[in-house]
């Protein structure tokens, strides 16, 4: 299972192990963690929710896109759902490629695509309230049916 939504803490080594290949000269691992302070505001904890069946399909799509763009790449991605505390691991992406430059590039591509097309949402819980995070200005219309590069924030 190289592309998963997980209700349990992510085993980072297991994600890495799935992209080990004899042809690879590099494996890059991205670990997304829950940050305490965002724009000066203190987060107590987050709750992630996913449209799980579609989210897995979109993660698989990202894996395919990477294998097409970077020759010999192998990809595994696991995203956590449920309640996460500060410093908890929300997402792990492992990419192996024959040469290191591709492994860094492809891994960066994966996290940016997750923020565009994978149906996962986080709800921030602060001391003074809570809010589902998305496009906080609520002004974005996705004319192409999915977000474009300009819609990305962080």
């Amino acid at each position, binding site marked *: 299972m190289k592309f998963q939504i997980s209700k349990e803490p992510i085993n980072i080594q297991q994600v890495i192990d799935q992209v080990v290949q004899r042809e690879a000269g590099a494996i890059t691992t991205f670990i997304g963690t829950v940050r305490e302070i965002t724009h000066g505001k203190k987060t107590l904890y987050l709750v992630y929710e996913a449209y799980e069946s579609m989210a897995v399909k979109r993660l698989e799509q990202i894996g395919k896109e990477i294998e097409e763009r970077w020759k010999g790449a192998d990809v595994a991605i696991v*995203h956590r759902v449920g309640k996460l505390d500060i410093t908890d691991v929300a997402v792990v992406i492992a990419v192996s490629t024959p040469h290191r430059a591709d492994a860094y590039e492809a891994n960066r591509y994966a*996290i940016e695509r997750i923020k565009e*097309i994978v149906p996962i949402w986080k709800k921030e819980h602060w001391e003074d309230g809570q809010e589902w*995070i998305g496009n906080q200005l609520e002004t974005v219309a*996705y004319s192409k*049916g*999915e*977000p474009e590069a300009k*819609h990305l924030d962080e």
Partner: protein
Amino acid sequence: MNKLLFFAHLKDEAGAETLSIDVSGKTIAELKTIVSEQHGLTKIDSVMTAINEEFAEDDDIIQQGDTIAFIPPVSGG
């Protein structure tokens, strides 16, 4: 029949995670008008939709048995 799915703030606004409704033959744009009027969903124009787990366009036509998901801007990662 069709199944509608709501996520994140839309789920809170609609007060439900799923709805069963027959909207076959209608477009996604027509369905958006229906749900925003009947379930008080605001700013639904900026929400993405998926038919059977694939992103859909406003002029796509809904078929019998399709599952339609309303997907607010995502915030994973």
